[in-house]
């Protein structure tokens, strides 16, 4: 229908002009991302500067890699990296299979009303903020007044300081993250499961396969590509261990096991105005995240899956 100019800028110019109204519609969106996404990307140069708030980004003096050297020789930094990776991997190991399991269970449920009810209930927490979830969790687990500890005491045990004990805190992060997001995560697998041809199940039934065998040999392979893509996305985001969640749930007694790159940058960067140093930490995180994502994507493509992009 449309004849995009053969050669010559005049023709191409008129093509653009022809769509001026479409381009105009794009302007607000582009303006927002330019100012609030791309300008901050330029702002990362302060990782290489001695940033002075009076002088601004442009006029602060360059210091090269000073902040990075400082960062890597810093006692806290390895700890922060370790926490980020450990928490993230724990969430991957225990949180990734959960929505798949839930979707399989929901898919096998034959009472459709009950199925819909469970589905509705399980994804409600996704829409509730971490502040509220954190509030509820802290309240339930409180050693002095929490319901859970009351039961533990009634069973004759000592109360457990779930939120301020280094042994338990990370597990609390994993469990509450699952509690909040598993139902929502199951939606996409359910969609994929619905796409599997019912005749395959019928045939398996005729051959005498029970439910578990059907799940193993039909359902799971049927959603394999969805699983792979989401798994790769998760691996690409290994440096995002759950900023908002930890911000709400942690406290000074568990910094040792709970402080991740993001919370560290937030607390030390804004709290103690260490702009250059913490920007370097943030940049380090962003860069590694990007590399991981690219690697994950190329693995996906090579193994014959569609990949993320």
């Amino acid at each position: 229908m449309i004849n995009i100019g053969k050669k010559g800028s005049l023709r191409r110019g008129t093509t653009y002009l022809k769509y001026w109204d479409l381009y105009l519609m794009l302007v607000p969106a582009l303006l927002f991302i330019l100012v609030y996404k791309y300008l901050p990307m330029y702002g990362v140069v302060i990782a290489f500067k001695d940033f002075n708030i009076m002088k601004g980004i442009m006029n602060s003096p360059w210091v090269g890699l000073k902040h990075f050297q400082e960062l890597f020789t810093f006692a806290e930094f390895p700890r922060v990296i370790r926490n980020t990776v450990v928490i993230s991997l724990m969430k991957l190991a225990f949180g990734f299979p959960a929505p798949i399991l839930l979707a399989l269970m929901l898919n096998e449920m034959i009472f459709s009303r009950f199925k819909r009810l469970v589905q509705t209930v399980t994804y409600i927490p996704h829409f509730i903020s971490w502040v509220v979830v954190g509030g509820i969790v802290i309240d339930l687990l409180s050693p002095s007044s929490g319901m859970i500890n009351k039961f533990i005491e009634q069973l004759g045990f000592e109360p457990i300081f779930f939120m301020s004990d280094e042994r338990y805190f990370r597990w609390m992060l994993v469990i509450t993250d699952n509690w909040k997001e598993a139902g929502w995560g199951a939606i996409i697998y359910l969609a994929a499961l619905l796409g599997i041809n019912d005749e395959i199940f019928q045939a398996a039934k005729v051959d005498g396969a029970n439910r578990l065998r059907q799940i193993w040999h039909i359902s799971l392979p049927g959603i394999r590509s969805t699983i792979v893509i989401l798994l790769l996305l998760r691996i690409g985001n290994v440096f995002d261990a759950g900023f908002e969640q930890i911000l709400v749930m942690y406290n000074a007694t568990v910094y040792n096991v709970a402080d991740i790159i993001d919370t560290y940058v937030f607390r030390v960067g804004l709290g103690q105005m260490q702009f250059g140093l913490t920007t370097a930490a943030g940049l380090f995180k962003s860069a590694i995240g990007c590399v991981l994502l690219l690697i994950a994507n190329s693995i996906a493509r090579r193994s014959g899956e569609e990949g993320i992009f």
Partner: protein
Amino acid sequence: MIRTRSESIFQYVNAALLTLLSLSIILPFIHIIAKSLSSEAYVLAKEIVFWPKGFNFLSYEYVLQNKQFYHSLTNSIFLAVVGTLISMIITVLAAYPLSRKHLPLSRMFMLLIIITMFFSGGIIPTYLIVKETGLLNSIWSLILPVALSPFNLILIRNFFQAVPDSLEESARIDGASNIRVLMSIYLPLSVPSIATISMFYAVGYWNSFFQAMMYITERRWMPMQMYLLQLVTDERTADLNISDVFREITPETIRAAAILCAVIPILCVYPFIQKYFVQGIMLGAEKG
């Protein structure tokens, strides 16, 4: 349907597990509701489980007559309504041209937007830009930097792409402009996905707190979640000035009541939108 013995055992076990799971989500809320409606003595004695004792509404009265609560509530409602409106306008306006496959450069613009999902300047540079654009301590600092969500944009764009071309062509023959086509063909056809994405944005604005932690220091501009966070994390709940009328309540019951006040608006919108969003997100995911 013929059911074997193992088949029905499977069904029972499955149903039991799913019921347990649902209870694990519902019961904490019931506990909080019970607490918020109970009186001090029973809460301190840890006697409240799922049923209130010493039933009263004093905590709610306290929360609802608190000045800061009102400021925060107003801010959050403003955020959710105005923020969502702005976000939807720029998202839909951008999604339409980006869904036109024949538009030159549209792939490049899309890429520019998607990159921001994977790479960002980080917390500090973003803070500095917000500061330099003069938004510190203003409600706009919670809207403008996050006004466009690339993820939501992709969902709407995919929905637009799925609209059959023939509809548009017939409108074109009648001489409709692009804006006209968007308004009178695409928008009415996309009600489910528009409703879903509006809900995503609204929930996002309503629930956001970490931006408020960075950009807002004046109490007057604190949104609901920020106020809640202070209630939740501050054990002493310092600003509670409990007068004689409210002797029956404790920081705990007030916290419970405030948490519920912040959740109720979402739970009210949820059933209306819910029927759309599974459909909405699936359509988006299919081609994503």
